[in-house]
Structures are given as C-alpha cells and as structure tokens.
C-alpha cells in the first residue's frame, strides 16, 4: 500500500520535473539566443557572494547535523526530512538574498515571469496534495516545496511593491 502511494506521488512529481526542466532548458536557450551580450557584472558579483555564504552555511550545517542528531531525538526519527529541510532553507537564503539585492532578474518582465512561476508551482503542489489523500506528514517533501514557492512568491511580490515606491522618482 505504501509503495502504491509512493508510486502515485512520485510519478507525477518526476513527470512534472521533466516537463519543468525541458521548459527551463528551452527558456534558457531562447534567452541566450535573444540576448547573447547580457552579462550583468553587478548581478554576478552579488550571486557569487550569496553562493559563498551558502557554501559556508551548508558546510557548517552538514558538519553540525550529525552532532545535533546525537542530542536531539526528534532529529534521529525524522533525520532525512529535517536534513533536506536545512538544504531548502539555504537555497531559500540564496534566492531571497539575490532577490532583495536585485541580482535575480534581468528586467521587470523576467521578474513577473518568476512571480508567476512560483505562484503556479505552489498551486500545482497544493493540488497534488489535495488530489492525493490530504495533507499529512508523509508529504513532507511536497510541503517543503509549497513553503519554498510561497516564501519566494511573497518575497518577489514584496520587492516589487518596495521598488514601486522607492524608484518612483527615477
């Protein structure tokens, strides 16, 4: 039964990931062909800085996590989910850092497509949980994805609102 449920959950995820990767690959190619000269030095510098912070965070986290498991029994029983949640948090940090430092999107259209992407991805994963057997802890990975998309969506939205007020005079 558990295998059947896992199959029902994993198959659509794998298919969706395949479709998403194909779409992203096509988008990247089109963008590259349309704007081969686009190299924003400031964005690259900020992304490099964020990557450096994330690398340090992941390194510390990976070293400390086994020690935390020794002293906190909850981490032992749900070791993998908590461990992957930490990686998600670091990925979120990278994205949010770049969003607020204006290093994530080429222009406002690109930012709007990012906003839409997170919105629809969040809705897709919520629907996936809904059409399975409801929200429970077995879906922790999908729940993490929903939280991730929701946080990124809210951050981009907040940044758009902040920019509208701050850059009004430019």
């Amino acid at each position, binding site marked *: 039964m558990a295998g059947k449920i896992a199959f029902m959950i994993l198959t659509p995820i794998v298919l969706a990931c395949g479709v998403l990767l194909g779409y992203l690959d096509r988008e990247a190619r089109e963008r590259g062909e349309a*704007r081969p*000269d*686009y*190299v*924003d*030095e*400031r*964005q690259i510098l900020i992304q490099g800085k964020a990557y450096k912070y994330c690398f340090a965070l992941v390194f510390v986290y990976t070293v400390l996590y086994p020690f935390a498991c020794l002293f906190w029994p909850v981490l032992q029983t749900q070791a993998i989910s908590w461990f992957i949640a930490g990686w998600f948090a670091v990925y979120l940090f990278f994205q949010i850092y770049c969003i607020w430092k*204006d290093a994530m*999107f*080429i*222009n*406002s259209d690109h930012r709007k497509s990012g906003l839409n992407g997170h919105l629809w991805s969040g809705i897709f994963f919520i629907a996936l949980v809904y059409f399975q057997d409801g929200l429970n802890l077995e879906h922790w990975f999908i729940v993490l994805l929903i939280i991730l998309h929701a946080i990124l969506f809210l951050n981009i939205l907040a940044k758009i609102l902040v920019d509208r007020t701050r*850059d009004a005079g*430019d």
Partner: protein
Amino acid sequence: MKNLKLKSARAAKDLSQEELARRVGVSRQTINAIEKGDYNPTLQLCIAICKELGKTLDELFWEPEP
C-alpha cells in the same frame, strides 16, 4: 556619491533606465545603482555606457578634485 552627470546625459538622450540597460546589456537596477552611486561599474561597462550616450569617460565618470 550620486552620478548626476550620467542621469542628465541619459535624460538628454531621452532614454529610460530600462532602455539604457537593455542597450548596454545589464539590468535596470544596475543602471539605477550606478546613478545613485551605490555601485562602481567596471571600465568595460563605463565604456559601453559612454558609447551609448555619445560621451567620453571624463564627461560621465571623472570627478574633479575639490
């Protein structure tokens, strides 16, 4: 320190930050950061901006001694 010379040169050419950014191949926020003095661009980007606005490096980026 704000780069008002860049801002006025851009305005004289009737270009928005978005349009100038598109022409020199960077994001609008980068042009905004340069105008506000929050970011020091590389020589390569300075030259690209100067060529686009029809100005020299001295005219846009040289600050005279006080």
